[in-house]
């Protein structure tokens, strides 16, 4: 796991001294991704917002114990992920990040012939930009919806790998999964999003 940076140590020190500006900075940086990750786990936006708020309370209560063995972001996301999983368990659902990458079909099998060559040439994606509107929505919105339809483990890996402050090793530690499992989940998740995006773009080529 990536250890904390001097900036992390300084920020944690300011937080431990009750510095409101340091807290706001961290909150602005991470809260949105925290709510999204919690939503993937607890499957309710309202509950996820509660879990994120409770996580910030836990961060403030325990910041004195932050020893810099991980990055500050990894420490915060680990608290969140554990809190969200506990909440899901209380609601009768066990969320394991080890599953979601173990089905044999990654959606690619049918794209190839017996010799491993493309049956159909993949489409040429023109002008794939976040702002482009297709079928009444921006492509970014389509991607957002595609991510929300993934299993929690795949969503969690995609969201955490998109955080600038988290190294791949932090993502594994936060979710309690091996590097190999993380790569499989990321592979499956990106393939699934690509498939949905390809279907959306195919509609406008018709």
């Amino acid at each position, binding site marked *: 796991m990536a250890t904390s940076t001097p900036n992390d140590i300084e920020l944690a020190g300011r937080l431990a001294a009750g510095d409101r500006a340091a807290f706001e900075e961290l909150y602005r940086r991470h809260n949105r991704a925290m709510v999204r990750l919690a939503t993937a786990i607890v499957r309710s936006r309202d509950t996820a917002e509660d879990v994120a708020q409770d996580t910030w309370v836990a961060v403030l209560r325990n910041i004195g114990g932050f020893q810099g063995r991980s990055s500050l972001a990894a420490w915060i996301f680990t608290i969140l992920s554990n809190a969200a999983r506990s909440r899901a368990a209380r609601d009768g659902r066990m969320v394991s990040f080890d599953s979601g990458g173990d089905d044999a079909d990654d959606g690619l099998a049918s794209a190839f012939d017996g010799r491993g060559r493309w049956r159909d040439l993949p489409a040429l994606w023109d002008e794939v930009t976040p702002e482009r509107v297709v079928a009444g929505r921006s492509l970014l919105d389509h991607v957002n919806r595609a991510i929300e339809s993934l299993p929690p483990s795949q969503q969690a890996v995609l969201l955490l790998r998109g955080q600038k402050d988290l190294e791949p090793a932090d993502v594994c530690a936060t979710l309690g999964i091996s590097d190999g499992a993380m790569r499989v989940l990321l592979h499956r998740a*990106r393939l699934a999003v690509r498939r949905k995006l390809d279907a959306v773009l195919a509609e406008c080529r018709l």
Partner: protein
Amino acid sequence: MLSCRGVAERANAMIDGDLGGWEAATMRLHLLLCRGCARFLRQMRATQDMTEAVASEAVTQPEAADARFDALLSELRNGKPSAG
């Protein structure tokens, strides 16, 4: 020589820079010669860019508003141990 399927299975590792030198070189050679795989890799790069854009979307967060935050920050400023 890698098959197209082999290239597709390694596309993410290539994008993330996780392939070793020999494997990356074999991939690059295949991509130079295969239009289908070159297109697929471009699709996967675009997908990765878009998922990262969603994950790191810069949305102005409302101010951290919760009475518990203020109470705890105040306790920290006063050097009081916070109640569990």
